[in-house]
Structure formats: C-alpha cells, structure tokens
C-alpha cells in the first residue's frame, strides 16, 4: 500500500513537472489562417509535371460509387502515365475523424474529400489547410458547368468564418437529394395520390394509420436519420431560402415560427403513431427493409438508396420531393463531399486536373452507368418512365431548377450534428416539446455565432 502511494506521488510529481514544462512552451496548434500567399500561375498540362504520386483520401467505399471511383482512377492513370494515384478510401465517419489529423501533418494528402459546412471545411479553411480553387474554376470552366447554388455550398470566406462566402474550395462529384420514397402498391390500395406538399403527406399518413398500415418507416438508432426527417419537414415548412440563410448564419433563428411548426409536425407524427414504434432503437437499415418489404407507406431517405430500393421493389417504388409553402420543391440535399486540394500539396495542377477528370461531364456518364447520381445530370439523360431512376432524375432537376436545395442542417455549427441528432431523439420520444427542441438548437447556434 505504501509503495502504491509512492508511485502515485512520484507519478503526480512527474506529470506536474511535465505540465509546467509544457505550459511554458508555446500553445498547441498552428498559427491560424495561412496568409493568402499569392498562388502561382495554373496550368492544365499534367504531362509537364513529370513523375508524380498523387495521394487521394476519399470516402467512396460502397457499391456503385466504389466501382465508379476505381474506373475513373484507372482511366486517369492511363491517360497520364506519369501520374500514380495512391488512394486511401474509408467510410464517411472514419474519414471525418481522421482527416483533421492527416491535414495537420507536414505531408498531407494532395486531394481530399471534405465535408461542407462549418464543422469540417470551415475549420480546414480557417486553419489555412485547403487551397482556394477559384483559379482552377476559371481554367476548367466549372462556373458554367455547375449550378451556382452548388458552388456556393463548396465556398467559404477565405478566413473560414462565413460559409457560402466568395472563395471556392472544392467541387463535388455526386448529387444527393433526401425526399419521400413511397410504395405505389400501398398508395393505390388506399386510393391515395402521391403527396405534393407537407399537408398531403400528413393526410396520407392519417389514412394509412386508420387502415392499419404503418405510415412512415423511421429507424433512428444511428441518430443521423433524424437530420433527414427533420430537414425534409423543415424545408417544406419554411422554404429553402429561409433555411439556407439560417444554416449559413446570415439571418433567422431556429425558434422562428415555421421551424417550430416543423418540430410540432414531427412530434405529432410520433405521438400519433405515424412513425415506427420505438424508432430510437430501430436501425436505419431495419426501417428501410420494413418499407421495401411492403410494411410501410413512406420512407424518408436519400437518393443514395436508389439502387437498394429499385432492386428490392422494382417499379413499385416512387420518389418525390415535397413542395414548400412557396410552391416550389424544397428539400434537404445538395452534393457529395467536396473534392479539395490541400495547400501543402506540391502538385496542385495535377490535383486539379484529377478533380476535373473525376467530376466533369464525361465522368458523369461513368457515374450514371454505375448507378450513381452525378452532380450535374447530362441534358440528354432520360431513364424509362415509371422507373425509380426516372423519378429521381425528374425530382433532382426540378429541385435544382427551383433552387430548392437545403443543406444538411448539421453544417450549422461544429457541434450541431450532436446537438440536433440528440434533440430529434428527444423530440420523437416526447422527452422535449417542440419549443424546447427549437430552443436547444438555438442555444447551440447562438453560442457559435457569437464566437465567430
């Protein structure tokens, strides 16, 4: 026992000594935003770069997108034999946690996929880790290829403090839309029409419930599906402009009436039994399976489930993005993670050529062939009527045309993902009222806004 204590005391003394030593040393972390050193002239000439190894970190790990990425990488190396691509692919969550450390190193990857919004891209830009890409946008004519709204989502002010600012930091490869999947068979059985608005959705769900059919399959064990459920509802209730401004931090509050209304809707759906019972303990995949096997009328999910649902349900499944109160479609969505160049990359020209190669119109065809939704749909792309692919293409064009894309709500603050997902679980379980729910969100939001 005495010996034990001595170890403690000695250990503590050493730790304290070390701490004192460390504290007198400099503060952790870099020295803040890199001064905007003048960027050199840019060029499309990849061959001139000589032998180059390009390190790439991406999250294209499953299904169709993994195939597409492999094909595109091989095609690029074939076209430019002097470039060797060294790829690290990991899941979204893994990439999110490891990218920060990788970017802090002295030899970060050349090309990385960075998540949009304040938690990731904003923090990277603030620390001066990403290279502004405005010059490459001119060189490769991205400004006319991409809709402005999508480029804005990949932009920040150069100090990283304002999302959707004036400096472009990446472009995306795939498009995404979160919307309402419906079972055509169950709709017909109930004699209902495809919902076009939030009110339609609600009345359809009421009738389904009365007929003993589960209205909306919802599994929220992973917590993230809550962002989709609430995001879609809020977009329809408040309209895309209001939510966009809110997430970007330019105007509005989470306690505004339409947002409270959306929270009220979700709470009502849960209490009326429109959502899967015990949703907080059901996994997202289980809920999706219950929908695809005919156990529920609706499922709110992303276009990335297209392949899964088309395989399971054939042409029995449809997809719709709800109209907001403004009369145009508005829903959560946007684009996949942005492909960005790190500021320490020694070969920005090669990196930019690579990014263009895997995102341009030619790549879009490869993505379509492998069952993905490219950021910009080719004008002549027209899948057979009545298929899920056709629904998704129509809705994607409609939402993009109406500028109805609402960003993922967790872009709002560095801690918003945790705050929002826990709050939606509370809301769905009836542990928080819609007012308490929106106040929780607003508290996180205003803390971050005042710290900027």
């Amino acid at each position, binding site marked *: *026992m*005495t*010996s*034990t*204590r001595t*170890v*403690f005391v000695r*250990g*503590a003394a*050493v*730790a304290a000594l*070390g*701490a004192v*030593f*460390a*504290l007198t040393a400099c*503060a*952790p*972390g*870099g*020295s*803040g*935003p890199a001064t905007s050193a003048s960027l050199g002239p840019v060029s499309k000439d990849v061959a001139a770069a000589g032998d180059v190894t390009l390190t790439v970190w991406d999250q294209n790990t499953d299904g169709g997108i993994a195939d597409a990425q492999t094909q595109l990488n091989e095609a690029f190396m074939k076209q430019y034999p002097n470039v060797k691509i060294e790829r690290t692919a990991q899941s979204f969550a893994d990439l*999110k*946690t490891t990218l*920060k450390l990788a*970017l*802090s190193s002295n030899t970060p990857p050349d090309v990385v996929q960075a998540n949009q919004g304040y*938690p990731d891209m904003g*923090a*990277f830009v*603030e*620390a001066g*880790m990403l290279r502004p890409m405005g010059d490459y946008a001119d060189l490769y004519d991205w400004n006319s290829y991409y809709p402005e709204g999508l480029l804005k989502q990949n932009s920040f002010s150069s100090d990283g403090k304002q999302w959707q600012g004036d400096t472009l930091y990446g472009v995306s490869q795939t498009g995404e839309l979160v919307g309402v999947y419906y079972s055509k068979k169950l709709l017909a059985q109930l004699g209902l029409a495809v919902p076009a608005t939030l009110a339609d959705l609600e009345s359809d769900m009421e009738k389904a419930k009365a007929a003993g059919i589960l209205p909306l399959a919802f599994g929220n*064990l*992973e*917590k993230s599906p809550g962002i989709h459920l609430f995001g879609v509802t809020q977009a329809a209730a408040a309209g895309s402009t209001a939510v966009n401004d809110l997430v970007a931090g330019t105007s509005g509050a989470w306690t505004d009436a339409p947002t409270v209304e959306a929270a009220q809707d979700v709470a009502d759906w849960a209490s009326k039994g429109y959502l899967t019972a*015990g*949703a*907080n*303990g*059901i996994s997202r995949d*289980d809920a999706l399976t219950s929908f695809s096997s005919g156990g529920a009328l609706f499922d709110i999910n992303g276009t990335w489930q297209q392949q899964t649902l088309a395989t399971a349900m054939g042409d029995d499944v449809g997809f719709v993005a709800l109209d907001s109160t403004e009369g145009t479609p508005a829903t959560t969505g946007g684009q996949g993670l942005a492909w960005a160049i790190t500021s320490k990359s020694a070969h920005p020209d090669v990196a930019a050529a690579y990014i263009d190669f895997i995102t341009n119109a030619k790549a879009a065809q490869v993505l379509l062939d492998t069952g993905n939704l490219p950021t910009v749909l080719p004008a002549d792309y027209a899948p057979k009527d009545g298929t899920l692919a056709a629904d998704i293409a129509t809705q994607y064009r409609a939402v993009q045309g109406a500028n109805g894309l609402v960003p993922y709500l967790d872009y709002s603050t*560095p*801690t918003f*993902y*945790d705050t929002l*997902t*826990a*709050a939606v*679980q*509370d809301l769905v*379980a009836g*542990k928080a009222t819609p007012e308490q729910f929106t106040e929780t969100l607003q508290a996180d939001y205003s803390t971050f806004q005042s710290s900027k």
Partner: protein
Amino acid sequence: MTTLLSVAPREETATATLTRGDDHAQTARARRASGHRRARRSRVAYLYVAPAFLVFAIFLGVPIAQTVQYSFYDWNGLGAATWAGIDNYLRVFQDPQLRDSFGHAVVLMFFYAALPVAIGLFLTALISRSHQMRSMSFYRTVLFLPQVIASVVVATIWVAIYSQNGLVNEVLRAVGLADLARVWLGDYDTALFAIGLVGTWLNIGLCLVLFLSGVGNIPPELFEAVRLDGAGRVREFTAITLPALRGQIAVALTLTVVSALKTFDLVYITTRGGPGNSTTVPAFEAYNRAFNTGQVGLASAVAVVLTIVIVLLTIAISRIEPKDVE
C-alpha cells in the same frame, strides 16, 4: 494510465498478504537496521528503474502532460489555440450534458462493480464447498470467458439480444409478458440499465474467479475448525471467507470501478450516447469532443477530471485492503 500502474503492485500484495504476511514484517525490521547501506544501494536501484521510467515518461508522461496543457486552451484541433484558463474545467461541471455523463458513470459503477462483487460473493459462498470438484477449472474458464472476448464482439451480441426481436423480447413474449417488450437500448428509461447489465455480465466472471482463488488460499483447517464449533453456512462465510477475501474484494472493486468509469466501447457501439443523451459517459464525451466536434480543450479537461476521479476512487478502495506493513 496511473491507475494501471497502481493496480499492478496492489494485486500482488493482495494475493501475497495471506501467505507472506510474516516475511513482510521481518524485512521491514531488517531495513530499519541497515539504513546506510540501503541509501547507497537505492541510488543504484534508480539506474535499474531508469529504462522503464524513460519509456513511461516518453509514451505516457508526455501525452499526459500534453493533455493537461490542452485542457487549458480553447482549441479546435486545427487552427490557433487561445488560452482559456480554467474555463474548460468550469464547463465540465456546468454543462448539463457533461455533468450527466459523470452521473451516468456513477450508475454504471453500481452495475459494473457493486452488483458483480455482491453476486460473485454469493456464488463463492455457494460454490466454495464444492470447490474441490474436478470440473472446476472448466467452469472457471467459462465464467471468465466474457472477459476474454473482444468488447466489440460483446457489444454487438448484446445489441442483438436487446433488439426488437431479440432474445430478451422473445422470452418476454413467450412467457406472456409481451407488454414489457421494448427496444431496450432505444428506450430512455432502460438504455442505461441495459448497458449496465452488460457490464454486470462481463464482470461477474472476473469477480468469481478472483474470489474462488482467494478461497483456495484459506487453510482448510480453518473451515474444519468452525464447522466443529457448530457454525452454519452463513456464519462460516461471514467469519472465515469474507475477512479472508478482503484483498480480493479490493482488487475486484478496483478493476470493476475503473472499468465502469472507463466505459467507452460498449456505449460507442450500442447507443452512441443515445437515446438523446441518456447514456453518454465521460470517456465517450472526451473522444467525441476531441475528434468529432472539434473541442479538444474541453475534451482534455474531461479526460483529466476523469483520471483524477479514477485515481481518487482507487486510493479510497485501497483502504479496504488488509494492511501489510504494520
């Protein structure tokens, strides 16, 4: 880290007390007699310790010092850090979510430590008489198995057991208690207890194996003596077994309390702190805030407070131990 170091010597002394108690007293007297020689020798002794100490300093000391340093800064892990003084520590106690996480750890301590030790003692009392059974080592292995299985596997198994159509609910339905069936890990009222019971299941085997080995060290004559005196099972347990197991109980409590406070993997895999924030624990908060939400300073403060709590509890528990140098 400190706790691991502290546990090791204790475990040894605890099991050694019963057999080597007398030697200890003798060496103590011998030491006092040769103070001078000892001083010279101890300086040499430091040389023997030096390599180990160097490794400790580089791989544990420096990171610990760094964590302490970070805890005084406001830092997102990437950009410049700003001095925050003790703000992070104040937040550990003021932020309701963080405060709750420590509260949850206390609840888990009951399930991880108190319950397994109590059950372990009860089972020991039952088994100790049949302790000479030939298949004992087989049962010991089976009981200890949960400790050996990777915790990720354990957690995944229990997610299935607690799920909508999992074992627990199927059994409830089979015996006509379908009303009680629920998604145990998704329910605000049951999630923390569900995780706690996994901990109980994990630690019972550890406690039992420790206690049984302790009972094995008790001279059989003692049992014979009390039985001749006409003591029943209960009296035999309280008079002989329990006092003799003080050392083992201290070790078991130390290991299980520390495992309760350090819980991370179970929560990470089963609930990720949900539903809401009803199952967050300090270690999960420290990880999440450091690597996901970019609050490295606050995360470090949580880690430092957690370490201090663990050290204090370990010291407190060590008081149960029989005194060896007296």
